[in-house]
């Protein structure tokens, strides 16, 4: 088996991919998906940590993270629908209402 370091690296890579997606994509749904990607990277880290430490706390943590991610995705997508209804577009460049 690989040392934990490699798992951390993999997790970090996924995380930064998610960050890149949040920062640079114009499609709101793509942004939400990138957030899911970030959450997943953290899940991987927890599972690995659980294997390192030797108890099941990490896995329980992942359990709950998945739950929360589900809720957040539901609410987020509901908002996307509301935004689409109001603005007719989900391009973030067109959604600049709170401008100075």
């Amino acid at each position: 088996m690989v040392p934990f370091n490699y798992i951390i690296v993999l997790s970090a890579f996924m995380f930064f991919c998610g960050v890149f997606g949040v920062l640079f994509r114009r499609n709101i749904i793509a942004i939400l998906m990138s957030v899911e990607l970030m959450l997943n990277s953290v899940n991987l880290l927890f599972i690995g940590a659980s294997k390192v430490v030797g108890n099941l706390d990490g896995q329980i943590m992942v359990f709950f993270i998945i739950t929360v991610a589900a809720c957040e995705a539901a609410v987020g997508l509901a908002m996307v629908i509301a935004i689409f209804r109001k603005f007719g577009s989900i391009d973030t460049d067109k959604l600049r209402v709170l401008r100075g």
Partner: protein
Amino acid sequence: MGATLLFGIFAFLIVACSLMVVLAKDSVVSAVFLVADLFVMACIYALLGADFVAAIQVLVYAGAILILFLFVIMLLNLDIVAARTNAGPLEIGMFIVVLIGFGILVVNLLLGERIELLPPGDSGLSITGKGNSYDLGLVLFSKYLWPFEMASVLILLAMVAGVLIAKRGKKKQP
């Protein structure tokens, strides 16, 4: 040895899928690659001894949440939106800083002290001998009962919120 090889294959797949998720123009393509990503993740979880979580991941995450994403994408019938936003010099600069940070992290990890994973079949990870699900259930309903109940409340709230936010306003009958 075999585990290491498997892990390598899985890692490679994850890298490829993650990149495709963020680089794809079409959001459907992104969603599909994310599904693949999650599937491979489940495999890694299984490799690391968390079979129950792996199953949950496939069933819930890939099987429900991502399907929800796809539903919404289909529902809104979106035109293809340009993939990336216009990045000014400030954004690029910041991103380079982030990249450097990532680089430092990676270097630190690869060259630094190695943290060893426990070998499989360790006593800590299996409390009873009856498998991961049984053990997880035991811990979940004893030590983590309170978060478990709260999670159910949270799901209820999210459901209500989702319905309310996406509700169409009352149409005035002429």
